[in-house]
């Protein structure tokens, strides 16, 4: 598991000596050698990595990969709390379940994420650009990374098929943090399809497919495949009763609805939606009425689904979308356990062609 290659010992990090980062003692007896040792030195990244990489570590506490602000604020919005730390029960949920995805430098550049599978990526070699399939996928496997690589849903993403990785589109600030704190991932400088495909912007395009709908459709409405949706999420203690863990029911579906939040970057009227793992009673194991604002927020969310293909079943013809009522969110898709806010996202169906 923690086998270190001879090759690593000749690298810039290797010549430092194990103890420089991990602490412990240079002793022949294991217990003495491991005394005071830090298995994951980057949990204290400002002291360890920061000595040489201060330009990165000085920003990292603002990264949502570090502080998990997205999950924290997502949970907080279901409550009346100004901060999750105001409620021991909510804070316990965040710390024990959400915070499993908290990452520091080593979780991407040296080892696999701890919540995925333990162990080093390659015998302690450091990766300037982490390998997507062993790092990003470790945390994002059930949705965007799994769909991108074709392990969830139907086919993979055409960009993956062409050899592109997460880092080819996402700027480094999405991982290392930017100078300003972000509320959640939507505050980040996110990539856009138009960054590369500017000729497909509805004001630039010369083909009718990309002009006829103006900016009313997100790219995914025509080019994404079905995505993974989670329902009936529930938090419970593990079998040993020692830790909280969540579970939910997954379904591969494709649903178009109204854009939950129209912004300058995402002005579309219709977008692909994804049901996120929430229900009103999901936290009842730790307390009653934990989500008092549950019905103010939809649990069908805007989905920048990451399994893009040029040709999809819904863009095969005009009728395959306009006459296909199965792909539009309807009242039948709203479950008893869902938020009432979802009804706002049920779109008027497009005019039938036949």
């Amino acid at each position: 598991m923690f086998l270190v290659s001879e090759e690593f010992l000749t690298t810039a990090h290797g010549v430092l000596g194990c103890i420089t980062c991990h602490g412990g003692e240079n002793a022949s007896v294991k217990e003495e050698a491991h005394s005071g040792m830090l298995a994951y030195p980057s949990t204290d990244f400002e002291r360890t990595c920061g000595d040489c990489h201060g330009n990165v570590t000085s920003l990292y506490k603002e990264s949502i990969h570090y502080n998990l602000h997205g999950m924290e604020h997502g949970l907080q919005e279901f409550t009346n709390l100004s901060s999750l730390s105001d409620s021991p029960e909510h804070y316990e949920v965040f710390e024990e379940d959400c915070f499993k995805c908290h990452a520091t430098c080593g979780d991407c550049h040296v080892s696999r994420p701890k919540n995925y599978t333990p162990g080093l990526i390659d015998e302690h070699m450091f990766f300037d650009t982490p390998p997507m399939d062993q790092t990003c996928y470790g945390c994002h496997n059930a949705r965007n990374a799994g769909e991108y690589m074709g392990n969830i849903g139907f086919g993979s993403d055409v960009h993956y098929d062409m050899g592109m990785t997460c880092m080819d589109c996402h700027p480094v600030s999405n991982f290392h943090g930017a100078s300003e704190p972000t509320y959640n991932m939507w505050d980040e400088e996110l990539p856009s399809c138009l960054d590369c495909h500017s000729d497909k912007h509805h004001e630039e395009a010369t083909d009718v497919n990309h002009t006829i709908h103006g900016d009313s459709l997100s790219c995914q409405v025509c080019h994404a495949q079905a995505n993974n949706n989670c329902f009936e999420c529930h938090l419970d203690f593990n079998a040993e009763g020692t830790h909280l863990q969540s579970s939910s029911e997954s379904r591969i579906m494709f649903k178009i609805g109204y854009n939950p939040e129209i912004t300058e970057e995402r002005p579309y009227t219709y977008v692909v939606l994804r049901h996120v793992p929430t229900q009103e009673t999901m936290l009842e194991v730790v307390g009653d009425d934990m989500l008092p604002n549950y019905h103010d927020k939809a649990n069908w969310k805007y989905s920048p689904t990451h399994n893009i293909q040029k040709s999809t079943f819904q863009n095969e013809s005009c009728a395959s979308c306009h006459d296909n009522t199965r792909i539009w969110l309807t009242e039948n898709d709203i479950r008893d356990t869902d938020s009432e806010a979802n009804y706002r996202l049920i779109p008027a169906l497009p005019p039938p062609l036949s």
Partner: protein
Amino acid sequence: MNNKKFIIGLVVAVVLAGVALAIHYNVVQPDGPLLPDVSQGDEEIPWDFESIDSSYCIDCHTSEAVIAASTYNEDNPPAEDTGG
């Protein structure tokens, strides 16, 4: 006589070398590194590191047999896959 010429030549060579270095670091490349880059493995190492002797750690952690016999996995099981 020859010895004297040799010593004078040596002094001149040292002075010239000093002048050349002074010109290089003060005029040609005033912001340049004081130490040359050294390449080890695939990485550029821009300076000399203070290395802490970790020879005992290395003896065990580069040994497949020692690591295979480790019980770390049983003692420190990974968290459940969050399915994120």
